[in-house]
């Protein structure tokens, strides 16, 4: 018996990292999982991992900033599994660049994936979502505080943090819960994990974090599952960051 038996979930950006881990965990808990992403080969790998223990999953190639593509994802989900219970808006983009070197195209690009993608996901899934459903928007610690050379990323994630609350208030009458989850440094391909990152970078992040470790995709997936199964939490923020936000003022090495 799983915690999500008979539920239908959509997870975006599920071809690697946090999204893949989440798709697998939700499927393990009994949900029918539609998982999406841009990389078809990696999508197939996620699908292979899920089909080892669950027949109820489907991959849909997905560019989250494209509205027609979102409509297609939702329709395919509805047709195959029925109305939606859970949406995990996980797909996101990250880059580091000083403001003076960032073009407007760069800025618009990150905003279209992180902001438009999340907004479109809520808009089109809410239409087909059961009352009592749950949406988890993956924002970031950088949607709550600043980081040099990350103005575009911080701006886009700050928008996700705020619109999560607005959307939660809007659909509370349908008993749909919408919350933001803020990962700290999680060792995924997006930040240099998955074989590309150096040990030095990892050590740097570890020392900067009160728990003296970087996160694993599983840590975030566990927290997403918690948010999907909780009944009274909405319009809220959950930090899964090893203590980084709490330590904002001093830096963990300060005495």
């Amino acid at each position, binding site marked *: 018996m799983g915690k999500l038996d008979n539920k239908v979930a959509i997870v975006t950006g599920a071809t690697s990292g946090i999204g893949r881990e989440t798709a697998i965990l939700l499927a393990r808990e009994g949900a029918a999982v539609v998982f999406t992403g841009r990389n078809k080969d990696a999508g197939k790998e996620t699908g292979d991992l899920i089909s080892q223990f669950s027949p109820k999953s489907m991959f849909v190639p997905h560019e989250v900033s494209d509205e027609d593509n979102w409509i297609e994802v939702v329709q395919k989900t509805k047709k195959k599994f029925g109305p939606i219970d859970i949406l995990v808006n996980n797909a996101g983009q990250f880059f580091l660049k000083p403001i003076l070197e960032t073009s407007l195209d760069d800025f618009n690009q990150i905003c279209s994936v992180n902001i438009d993608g999340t907004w479109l996901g809520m808009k089109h899934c809410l239409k087909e979502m059961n009352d009592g459903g749950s949406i988890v928007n993956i924002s970031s610690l950088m949607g709550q505080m600043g980081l040099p050379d990350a103005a575009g990323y911080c701006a886009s994630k700050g928008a996700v943090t705020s619109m999560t609350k607005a959307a939660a208030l809007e659909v*509370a009458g349908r008993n749909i819960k919408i919350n933001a989850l803020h990962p*700290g440094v999680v060792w995924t391909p997006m930040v240099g994990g998955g074989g590309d990152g150096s040990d030095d970078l990892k050590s740097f992040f570890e020392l900067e974090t*009160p*728990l003296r470790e970087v996160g694993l995709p599983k840590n975030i997936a566990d927290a997403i599952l918690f948010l999907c199964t909780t009944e009274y*939490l909405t319009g*809220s923020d959950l930090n899964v960051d090893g203590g980084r936000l709490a330590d904002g003022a001093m830096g963990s090495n300060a005495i």
Partner: protein
Amino acid sequence: MQNLKGKNIIITGGGRGIGAEASRLLASEGANVILTCRTKEEGLLVEKGIIDTGGSAKYIYQDVTSENDWDNVIKSTILEFGRVDSVVNNAGSFLWQSMEGGSLKEFKNIIDQNLTGSFLGLKYGTKAIRMHGEGGSIVMVSSVLGKVGAANATAFCAAKGGVRLLAKSGACELGPEKIRVNSIHPGLTDTDISKTFSDGVDESQYIKSNIPLNRKATSHEIAKTILFLVSDESVFITGAELTIDGGMSAR
């Protein structure tokens, strides 16, 4: 499910409301629950209920503002169960009082019950967890009124706001030892404290105009959040605040 098998967890204010429900839920997940409160009959009743349903529980008398009582709770727990894995600082009390009409004595009492008690729980809990060096989880039960203000609740808001940052400071200080400290911020919950709260307002009107989900929380819903924070599902979460308020503070 036995996610907490073998973990020894101290819960203050375990005689009623959120503390009693958390005691029952954590015990049902396999934890040895050490529940404390000042009202002995209530504490013993919760203890009996857990044992009767096959769980492990022990009631110990405690005034959370007393260092001697904390020392006794920790020593008794270690004597009987061997070690401490988690402390849930849940005991607290609420009071309506206007700024001008309220007395300093009552103000200090609210600070003692909610904030000083939590500080002692953090201090003695940490000492005990350090003895085995494998880390642990400390949960502070603050309130939505530890994040936003409310008229005529200055003492409670000050105390619960203090609890929120007590948790964050504890998280920074103890992170390297894998002792996690988080706060939870319940909104209006189906408990005695919220009855005191509701004495001052028209409850159904209050709920309608202030709680987007249009109802109170159940103690069980709050207890599930405590379960998450003491479990291994939250090993990367520290210094965080979980607001379980039906959307109350999102606007």
